[in-house]
């Protein structure tokens, strides 16, 4: 069971928005994590270092908040491994096919008024909701 946490969610969302704005303003790049991840290995060599820095920053940022506010995020354990592995694979595969994930489409693309990104975001949500329904309420798996 999780708690309703609107204020920290708003504040966290604003930080994510500011990050996306700064990356666009200074580097001219979209803060889309799946694209940044893919390019880390598949973009031209000169276009990789900033990606590594951004991804490293994600890890450091989460670690920083964990230091400042221990126990705010507690890593989940004992979740069914096959769901994680299949889920991760589909997330990576689908994000490449759709050319973006929640950050690229759901934040940056929507903010830019893109119809493609709106369609993608609605599809993520719909497919995610159906999947959770089946996993939790039909199959009785997961958390």
């Amino acid at each position, binding site marked *: 069971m*999780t*708690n309703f946490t609107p204020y920290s969610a708003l*504040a*966290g*969302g*604003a*930080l994510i928005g*500011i*990050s996306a704005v*700064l990356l666009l*303003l*200074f*580097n*001219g790049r979209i*803060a889309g994590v799946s694209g940044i*991840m*893919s390019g880390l290995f*598949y973009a031209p060599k000169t276009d990789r270092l*900033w990606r590594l*820095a951004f991804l490293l*920053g*994600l*890890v450091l*940022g*989460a*670690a920083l908040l964990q230091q400042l506010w221990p126990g705010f*995020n507690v*890593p*989940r354990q004992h*979740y069914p491994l096959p*769901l*994680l*592995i299949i*889920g*991760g*694979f589909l*997330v*990576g*595969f*689908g*994000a*490449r*096919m759709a*050319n973006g*994930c*929640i*950050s690229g489409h*759901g*934040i940056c*693309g929507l*903010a*830019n008024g893109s*119809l*493609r990104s709106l369609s993608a975001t609605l*599809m993520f949500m719909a*497919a995610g909701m159906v999947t959770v*329904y089946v*996993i939790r*309420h039909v199959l009785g798996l997961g*958390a």
Partner: protein
Amino acid sequence: MKQTLLALICGVLFGVGLALSQMLNPNEVLDFLDISGRWDASLIFVMLGALPVAMLAFKGVLKRPTPLFAGQFQLSTKQWVDKPLLLGSAIFGVGWGLGGYCPGPAVAGLGLLSQESVIMVLAIYAGIAVYNRWFGQP
């Protein structure tokens, strides 16, 4: 060098934002998607926090001829909703609902020393590698 440092700072802000907004808690994500069960609307507030900031600022930023540290803005030039977009998004959504992780939180979760994050990052890269091998790097 400037671009790399800026990317690091943006990554840190993004990572703190994800951690603060509970996006790093995959059960919170699953509860958000569980509209017929124990629905938790918190994650809507993440978008409510991020979107107004980004919407207002993107408009101003994109009026500039170039970014501050780079020669040009690199945005998607695709305009139309096509089959790969919808099919890819559906596949993504199924994966999201299975594990409760999208790419940002999977990476950031490494900062919590979460074992699940290690598994997720590897699995996401497997999906990316298979897609890029089959269809080429877009």
